[in-house]
């Protein structure tokens, strides 16, 4: 058992931290977030140069050949600064799915494009009337003389507004399959939306849209894997946001005076800060645990749910309390703390929700006597 980062991992963390320190401050972040696409191309190029975009892509495919620990470490830093760039959605997740295919060499160009920052991908999987874990795929795939086409609608495609390609789930008969859809192809229409935490996305309408099959062997297993990765990465991001929200709140209470003394000296508030710190540490523990297990190859959705459950529980309280403890400015759009709370709420919504993960975890409790970690 060991929870320390290696020297290389620490260097990666510091590089990402420095990259964001150099490129953003609160004001720049705010301007970027409300501007058109919501993130910065220059930063994207810097991320590519630092190797972040191809972090978990093997070196043969133009990536850095790192693993889940590195991805999670970066995600935590992104969460800490509310980094708007769509690293997880446009790079990490699409690359991971393509790497599950039977012959990743077939996707050599795409993978290299992801790592170099030239190509933006997006998972197009969720459909209407479904909740986590999303399995209600009705989009149908049809083989024609000219190849495959897809028909159906996909909603809530994260950062789907700017994607160069989509990895879309569809049914071939009753079976799940995944397809590569070019972002500029005919028969694809997209409707952009913004998220409550100032990100972007799109709903897609597919009408006999040309698509290329991705040969996955076991598409259900690949979906489970990529979802587990998404959950674990989002948990890691949430940790960074929670740590920073708590730090900002603690600083605020230390500087802000009322009735002639700093708010942090009010014992009732100090006790609450302590409870918040414990909540962050518990979430961090479960997040690290899920990272370590996934790194070891144990792609177990129950363990991802354990982390997600703890993260949802902690995030809800941290978000609420960090607004509340700020008083009036906490609920204003111009002050940063509300954006942390918004991001945490959005992460919870993407994770699927505490209720859903609790039910997932609860469904298995009679299968074992005690929870054994590792």
């Amino acid at each position, binding site marked *: 058992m060991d929870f320390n980062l290696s020297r290389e991992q620490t260097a990666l963390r510091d590089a990402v931290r420095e990259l964001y320190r150099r490129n953003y401050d609160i004001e720049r972040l705010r301007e970027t977030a409300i501007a058109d696409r919501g993130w910065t191309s220059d930063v994207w190029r810097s991320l590519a140069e630092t190797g972040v975009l191809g972090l978990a892509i093997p070196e043969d495919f133009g990536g850095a050949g790192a693993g889940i620990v590195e991805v999670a470490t970066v995600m935590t830093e992104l969460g800490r600064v509310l980094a708007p760039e769509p690293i997880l959605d446009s790079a990490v997740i699409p690359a991971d799915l393509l790497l599950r295919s039977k012959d990743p060499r077939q996707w050599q160009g795409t993978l290299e494009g992801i790592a170099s920052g030239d190509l933006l991908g997006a998972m197009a999987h*969720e459909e*209407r*009337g*479904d*909740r*986590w874990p*999303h399995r209600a795929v009705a989009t149908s795939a049809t083989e024609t003389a000219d190849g495959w086409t897809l028909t159906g609608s996909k*909603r*809530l495609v*994260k950062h789907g507004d700017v994607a160069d390609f989509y990895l879309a789930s569809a049914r071939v008969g009753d079976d799940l399959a995944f397809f590569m859809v070019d972002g500029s192809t005919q028969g694809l229409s997209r*409707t*952009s*939306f*913004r*998220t*409550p*935490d100032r990100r972007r*996305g799109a*709903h897609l309408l597919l009408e006999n849209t040309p698509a290329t099959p991705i040969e996955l062997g076991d598409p259900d297993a690949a979906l489970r894997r990529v979802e587990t990765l998404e959950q674990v990465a989002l948990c890691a991001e949430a940790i960074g946001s929670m740590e920073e929200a708590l730090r900002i709140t603690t600083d605020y209470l230390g500087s*802000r*005076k*009322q*009735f002639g003394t700093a708010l942090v000296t*009010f014992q*009732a*508030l100090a006790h609450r800060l302590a409870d918040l710190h414990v909540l962050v540490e518990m979430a961090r523990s479960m997040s690290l645990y899920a990272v370590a297990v996934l790194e070891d190859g144990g792609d177990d959705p129950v363990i991802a749910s354990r982390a997600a459950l703890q993260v949802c529980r902690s995030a*809800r309280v941290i978000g*609420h309390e960090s*607004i*509340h403890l700020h*008083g*009036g400015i*906490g*609920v*204003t*759009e*111009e002050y940063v703390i*509300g954006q942390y*709370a*918004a991001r945490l*709420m*959005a992460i919870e*919504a*993407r994770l*699927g*929700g*505490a*209720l*859903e993960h*609790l*039910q997932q975890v609860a469904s298995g409790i009679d299968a074992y006597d005690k929870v054994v970690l590792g």
Partner: protein
Amino acid sequence: MRMRLSNDEASFRQQVREFFNTQIPKDIRERAASGETREPDDIADVQRILNAHGYAVPSWPAAWGGREWSPVQEHVFLDEMHLAHVPEPLTFNVDMIGPVLCEFGTDEQKARFLPGTANLDIWWCQGFSEPDAGSDLASLRTSAVRDGDEFIVNGQKTWTTLAQHADWMFALVRTNPDAPKRQEGISFLLIDMRSPGINVRPITLLDGSVEVNEVFLSDVRVPVENLVGEQDRGWTYAKFLLGNERTRVARVGVSKNRLALAKRLAAETPAGQGTLLDDPMLRARIAEMENELAALEVTLFRATSGDVDQAAIASILKLRGSELQEQTTELIADIAGPTALAVDGPSDEIPRWAQRSIRSYLAQRKVGIYGGSSEVQRMIIAKTLTGR
């Protein structure tokens, strides 16, 4: 002990229910039900209809339009207003400045301001809070210096609700900076918002709404006849005003409507083989909240019949009422779940309530902060227990 309404009370309930459902236009009530009330128009329209029927200011003295209702009647009136989704009257007019002027105003002030206040011809805002003051109201710094027949006011107010629509502001200002206690040396002034030197800067909240403002006052001249009561004794009138809200702070009706909405939305949300409302855990959460809300409502009834410590009651109602308002918006965000992620897409893809849910959740954190934070309420309650 009696839970049921008396025959008279029951027929009063029937009468006001019919009034709200027939006299207040349906579109206003529908907008209110879905959280889309148009300000200031809807508020003003309702207030004028109420006034035309003698329902605008029931708690004022009869001479100025009051009805001398029993506490039960006041409660029933408000309850029915909420149930019919009628937007609430502007509290600054009805519960705050009106009663203060009735009690402490000069005859001239009453004649000049009260009719327009009741009819919302004058839209009032409250100039109490200041930057860096928070819950410590008495630390205010806005100054008013006497210059002949005028005060010259300089300073800044903040969290001034709906000041962007306001015609007048009632404000606390420091007239004697050398008073031995901070609460002394404060005066209560009526300030025309069209006066030169007033600048209103809207503050956007986390749901994108503009509800509160900063108000900058720079050499604003206020005639001395706009002083309420005695100079330097404004703290007394402010305390009277703040003590006047009482039971309305619980906002039971708002939370009740929101819980009913939550049940409807959950029943419309597919999940597993059925809907989200079939989920035993969600059902339990809703049932628990309904029960907590029922307990709060009975506490309100008890307050009206005097069976609860009067010193603590307003704080208990505010504290629990805020918590339940916060929890009910949280519930709706959780029902929206992953669909809460789109805030401006097409509503046929994601319904508007879901699109709004997270930002409403965030902005609604305000209810535990404004109007005396939950921490302030806890200290007041603790004081009644311990006598310290």
